């Protein structure tokens, strides 16, 4: 039912998920499998268990009602107000549970709390349509600039994703495209130029670049997975993104480094 969501994690004091001090609601379940994923525990739709070396165990995937999540969110109302913050719904892919997102965002709005939706966009547009009236800003991940890479690296449908992006702009949604910059994949000037072609074509004005990190590596081990390709790739220094920011800005985009 729309009233209940399958939740991976709730997190107060998120500082990288939008403006101000935010609370992030991580939903469980994702229909992509990005090679560099830092929240692998959120992928299985049935939930997962993280078993750490020190004996600690964490369950990812609990049923929670809108009311329960809202109670958690409301604890930090003073912080949202004072910092221009709010709630970010993320995951996993939150739009796999569009009714829940709608219900939660609507409940937040009735408490004057703005909601950002953080999505990879690989869902039918109907899912967007449902939630749009209650969402302040969409953070839209653009993981690659061509169908081949999209399929190879993430399993996602490039055409559908880009169509969704275009449609969102046409429907006057406030969209910020988020590009995770991954070594060996999309960290070149040429690749970035092609990204810009797509963005301009879609009518996108704002882009955030997110530098690669491997902070999620221990989660793979805790899940019993040994297929994390980026284990030995060092975290990217923010400065490495400056040339890419220049390209984006030169071509008229409002670009910044986030993360």
């Amino acid at each position, binding site marked *: 039912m729309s009233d209940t969501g399958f939740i991976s994690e709730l997190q107060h004091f998120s500082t990288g998920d939008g403006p101000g001090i935010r609370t992030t609601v991580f939903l469980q379940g994702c229909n992509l499998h990005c090679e560099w994923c830092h929240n692998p525990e959120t992928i299985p739709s049935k939930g997962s268990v993280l078993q750490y070396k020190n004996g600690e165990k964490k369950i990812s995937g609990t049923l929670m009602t809108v009311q329960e999540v809202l109670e958690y969110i409301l604890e930090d109302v003073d912080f949202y107000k004072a910092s221009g913050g709010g709630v970010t719904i993320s995951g996993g892919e939150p739009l796999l549970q569009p009714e829940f997102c709608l219900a939660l965002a609507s409940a937040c709005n009735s408490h004057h709390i703005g909601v950002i939706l953080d999505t990879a966009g690989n869902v039918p547009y109907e899912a967007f349509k449902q939630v749009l009236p209650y969402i302040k800003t969409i953070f839209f991940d653009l993981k690659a600039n061509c169908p081949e890479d999209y399929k190879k690296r993430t399993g996602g449908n490039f055409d559908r994703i880009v169509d969704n992006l275009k449609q969102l702009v046409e429907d006057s949604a406030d969209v910020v495209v988020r590009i995770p910059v991954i070594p060996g994949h999309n960290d070149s000037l040429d690749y970035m130029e092609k990204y810009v072609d797509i963005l301009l074509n879609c009518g996108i004005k704002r882009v955030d670049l997110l530098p690669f990190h491997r902070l999620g*590596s221990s989660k793979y081990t805790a899940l019993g997975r040994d297929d994390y390709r980026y284990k030995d790739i060092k975290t990217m220094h923010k400065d490495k993104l400056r040339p890419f920011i220049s390209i984006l800005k030169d071509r008229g985009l409002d670009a910044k480094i986030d993360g």
Partner: protein
Amino acid sequence: MGNLQLLKQEMEENRSLAQGTDVADYYMFLGYRSHYREPAVVAKGYAIASLFKEHKKYVYENDLIAGSLLGRRVPEGTYSQAELEYASRVVSSYGRNGFHTNFDHFAPDYETILELGVGGMICKIKDSLEKHQKAGSKDKKINFLRSAQITMEAFSEMIFEYGTAAEELFLKNGRGNLLEISRICKKLAKNKPDTFHEAIQLVWLCHLSFCYEKRYAMALGRLDQYLYPFYKKDTEAGILSEERAIDLVSCTLYKIIEFKYMNEENTNLSSSDVVNIAIGGVKRDGSDAVNELSYIILEAVKNCNIPGPNLSARMHANIPERFWDKCLDLIGTGIGYPALMNDEVNIPALFRMGYDIEDCRDYSMVGCIENFMTGKQAPWSDGRFNNPKFLELALNNGKCMMTGVQMGIPTGDVSEFTCMQDYIDALEKQTDFAADEYVALFENENDRYNRERLSQPFLSCFCRDCIERGLDIRDGGAIYPSAHGAACMGIATVADSLAAIEKVVFTDKLVTLKEFSQILENNFEGREDIRQACLQAPKYGNNDEFVDKYARWFVDKNAEIFDRYRTYDGGRYYIGIASNITNIPAGLEVSATPDGRKKGKPLSDAASPMHGLDKNGITAVVNSTSKPDFKKVACGTVLNQKFTPMMFSDCTKRDKLKTLIKIYFQKGGQEMQINCVSRAVLEDASVHPENYSDLVVRVSGFSAFYTKLDADVQKDILERTENE
């Protein structure tokens, strides 16, 4: 970089001079033995004079500010063991002051000496002496003033001798800075300072003299306020640059490390001196007090990068954004300073203790965080009140579970208690009685000695209105009576314990209170199930009213109790929610507690949630720890929080941290001590993850606790943000 770098090197090279025999006592002895026939207070004056006179006046070649503690040491063997013991015996006979007899942890009145100069201070003493003689005042006042005069005249000669020492060095190596030191010291021996350089030189020599008297934790107080007129005049006249001012302050503060050189073998925390400097805040009229010097001091402390200068920033509702930013910048370097104090809580808290509102606005801190009426009150004292112990006593009819000693009063067998309130009543009674004992024992110490004999003639010159009144700082000279702080330990241990009792005994009814008491007495042996239930009960720091209400009670109750008492001269007892590191030894004396803590283990630290049990992040900690009414906590509070460097290096994230702290203060939080964990600390986190379980990493769309990250990845946090 100015002189600081060279000074650091030179001081390091001369470190061995800090070893050897300490001769402070010996020099005082020389003064006493030549004046056995004088009244004790006068003999003391001569003893202090001897201390100022006899010590070797070291001057560093690269320095800008004279005054070194090295004169307290002489090579081993200079005096025989027999001589030293003899001297020590005489000095002891005249009485030794200590922390509990208002000896140190004091913020002097520097304003007056800067205004009058040493010569002017001597005149002031002489004038007062004459007045009192004419008025036929009691002998003790005449003797006190004679003694003050003796010490101040010796202080004057001491300053001149530092000038001579600098001049001798100058004649050897021709360095301009030494000539300048010489000129300044010779001038300050009699005259008041005119320039910033002269002013800070005088302040340092005063502070140094207190250190020669073996006083610990002497504060420099509101350095950015009383030095400001000099700074302003010089910069307007174009004779002082910002860089030069930073260098002067740095060279002054860096010498605080000499104390550490002298106490190298001391492995506990007090191997470093704790010199509190309070910048920012409001002026006496309530307006913002931040000025250019406030920023200069931040820069100087950063340059010094040593633990001794305890920089504290007083924040208020209208403090400039730039000041917030600069404070966070400094904290972001990993130095741990400044501690952030909330004027909006501290000023009302002090006002509640009966001081004039303007004086409250002028407060500074001594030691780490202890609020103090600058230059108007006898030195500070405090003690530790072991609140968690009373949990045990209330469960055991007043008997210590560890030793069987009847430490508390009989409050009834718990099998007769039928509800939570019955237990709270017993706990309150135990706490009341323990406070009576605490105060009685403290007063025995504090009031043990004849105050006329155990005088402080030099220090009293730095407290209003001792000279005018002809009275020692402890004998009615100070404008305000002495205060004492009862540091109430274990707020989280107590709150968590009460919540556990309410949950396990009275709500879930897993065991009776009597059974529970026995389980605790047996240190949970054989009842791990109950211990787990206790650990699962709500914990302070997670924004859960079930337990937070007890933290509120803790502050209310302790404040109510200590409001009843007065010190020997009618002063107030404050409470503090702080413990230094004494939560560890205090824990050794406490049996297993209802929160699930085992016998002998550390109590919770200061005002913080129990280590590792705040599981909902910093906003929950802020929500919880702002619920108690800290306006009842006049001494002060310590809340330690750790963050990774990422929180500081990214402007956007830094702004969010700033907002968080502002909200904390708006909600009534009193203090925050922020640690930006440095590389060294992060490496320690790999070795001792249990101490860093609350360190979180915040990246877009990701969450983790630092200690859950892979070892090589933990360093990535630094890689990501450190400048090449």
